[in-house]
């Protein structure tokens, strides 16, 4: 009998999902995890909370210390996968090790995208903000007088700004986009979040970005100059697709996966930020680089790698992000009237709610300030609940199970779910 060997490339949350998925079916076959980073899996989005002092290095562990051991996993720390050989069903590592596999999951995540900006090499203190090592290196140079320039007003750049705001002298955030968080918020919603950040001392240069660096000085597209001691590049991320791409596997902006998390190559699965899967709220493929998605994709990959049968067919974008106590929760896709969508809106004092419907289902929402029980809305999107089977007027006011029929509610609350 040929022994089964599971190999996972990557050691983030998708890998955890994959390990737990494999073990839900197959408790004995060896699992090898190839981990470029030298740490056991940690909650990657925690890095800003670490700098803010809300969590500690020890508490960032995503699983208990005996996680790998109790799941029969061997972890190769500090190793990078160079090449997969699909004929030999093996993967070559950067130290020459060849790992045979029966099934393999590529969970390589994403890497910061650094645009080629003139003079970037002249900047001494420059950082990305993706990994624990990035964070620890950044922390070393932070002083109460530091002038920080963050290029990129997306989720990563702004969480970084919040994380370090109490530890530096000044923070300026620039972005070519004319609003913050442009991937998840429209102008009006973005303005609310920006205002909260500004109230806490963060300065913005929007519609503007650095076009040239000279030591500690940035020249902006607008012609303005910004002096800084620390530069953080948070323009965006790109999926790490090379391992699958160079084998001829289908790759778009991410590695294309189906509902079983199979790539176009046999016995090669992929999960997490490196993938591009179906966004059911959009009805199209999209890179959904969010933690819950990584776990669920990983789990599905793992179950199927071990011979089980699981599909993950409920992926949607969803984000919960807060700054200085103001929370925004968003999910799904927002279709405008020209695309056949409808929007319901409520505004309050510092709060905003937008619900987007199309073709008889809720496709997306934005909640700012008042976010309680948002998951009730999220669930309607994920389950594609027809609006005409619930009382949508009640739901518009508040997310509540009261909007479901008594029968539906009985199923939800009356048994094991």
């Amino acid at each position, binding site marked *: 009998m040929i022994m089964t060997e599971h190999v996972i490339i990557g050691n983030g949350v998708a890998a955890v999902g994959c390990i737990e998925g494999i073990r839900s079916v197959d408790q004995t076959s060896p699992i090898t995890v190839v981990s470029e980073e030298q740490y056991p899996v940690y909650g990657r989005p925690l890095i800003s909370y670490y700098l803010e002092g809300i969590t500690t290095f020890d508490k960032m562990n995503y699983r208990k210390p005996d996680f790998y051991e109790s799941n029969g996993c061997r972890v190769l720390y500090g190793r990078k996968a160079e090449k997969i050989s699909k004929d030999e069903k093996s993967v070559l590592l950067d130290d020459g090790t060849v790992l045979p596999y029966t099934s393999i999951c590529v969970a390589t995540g994403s890497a910061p995208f650094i645009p080629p900006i003139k003079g970037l090499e002249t900047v001494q203190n420059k950082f990305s903000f993706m990994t624990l090592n990035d964070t620890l290196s950044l922390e070393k140079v932070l002083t109460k007088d530091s002038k920080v320039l963050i290029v990129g007003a997306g989720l990563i750049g702004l969480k970084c700004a919040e994380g370090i705001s109490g530890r530096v002298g000044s923070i300026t955030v620039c972005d070519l986009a004319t609003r913050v968080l442009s991937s998840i918020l429209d102008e009006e919603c973005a303005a609310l979040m920006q205002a909260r950040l500004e109230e806490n001392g963060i300065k913005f240069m929007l519609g503007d970005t650095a076009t040239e660096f000279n030591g500690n000085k940035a020249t902006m597209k607008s012609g303005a100059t910004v002096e800084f001691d620390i530069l953080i590049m948070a323009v965006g991320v790109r999926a790490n697709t090379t391992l699958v791409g160079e084998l001829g596997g289908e790759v778009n902006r991410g590695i294309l996966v189906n509902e079983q998390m199979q790539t176009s190559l046999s016995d090669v699965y992929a999960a997490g930020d490196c993938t591009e899967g179906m966004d059911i709220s959009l009805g199209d493929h999209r890179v959904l680089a969010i933690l819950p998605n990584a776990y669920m994709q990983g789990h599905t990959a793992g179950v199927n790698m071990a011979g089980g049968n699981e599909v993950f067919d409920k992926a949607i974008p969803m984000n*919960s992000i807060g700054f200085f106590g103001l929370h925004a*929760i968003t999910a799904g896709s927002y279709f405008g009237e020209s695309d056949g969508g409808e929007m319901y809106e409520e505004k309050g004092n510092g709060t905003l709610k937008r619900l987007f419907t199309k073709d008889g289902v809720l496709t997306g929402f934005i909640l700012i300030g008042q976010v309680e*029980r*948002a998951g009730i809305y999220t669930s309607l999107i994920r389950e594609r609940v027809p609006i005409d089977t619930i009382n949508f007027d009640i739901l518009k006011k508040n997310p*509540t*199970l*009261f909007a479901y029929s008594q029968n539906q*509610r009985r199923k939800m*609350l*009356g048994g094991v779910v």
Partner: protein
Amino acid sequence: MKRVYVNEEWCLGCHLCEYNCAFANSGMTDMATALKDKPIFPRIHIEGNEKISYAVSCRHCEDPMCVKSCIAGAITREDGLIHIDQSKCVGCYTCILVCPYGALATNENGVMQKCELCLQNSCGAPACVKGCPNNAIVYEERGDDND
């Protein structure tokens, strides 16, 4: 596993479960000191209108979205019980984003909490059940469990 269920037909909508929950989790021995003239942060909530009401609390799902989505690994499922390690929670609200029942909310200090069946407080069994005047809330085994 035993879970908390509510019989909608019998719920009076009196909200006593909310007070009993807040008291049981307050760590105090006197109800008046614990709750009087204070906003309460119960882990069970009454929903509905004048005619129909029922209590909602954590379902301890077999396939819990909160556990899969927690960015801190602070929510775990052991022997069916879903537990929040509040010392690991960073208050990111991702669990609020994903829970289909709206069963998680923050406590008075902004840290996430939810029903943990009173197994870890001095009550030892759900206080909402014990104090329900119409026995609408019950603590029992229902249906099949994977565990």
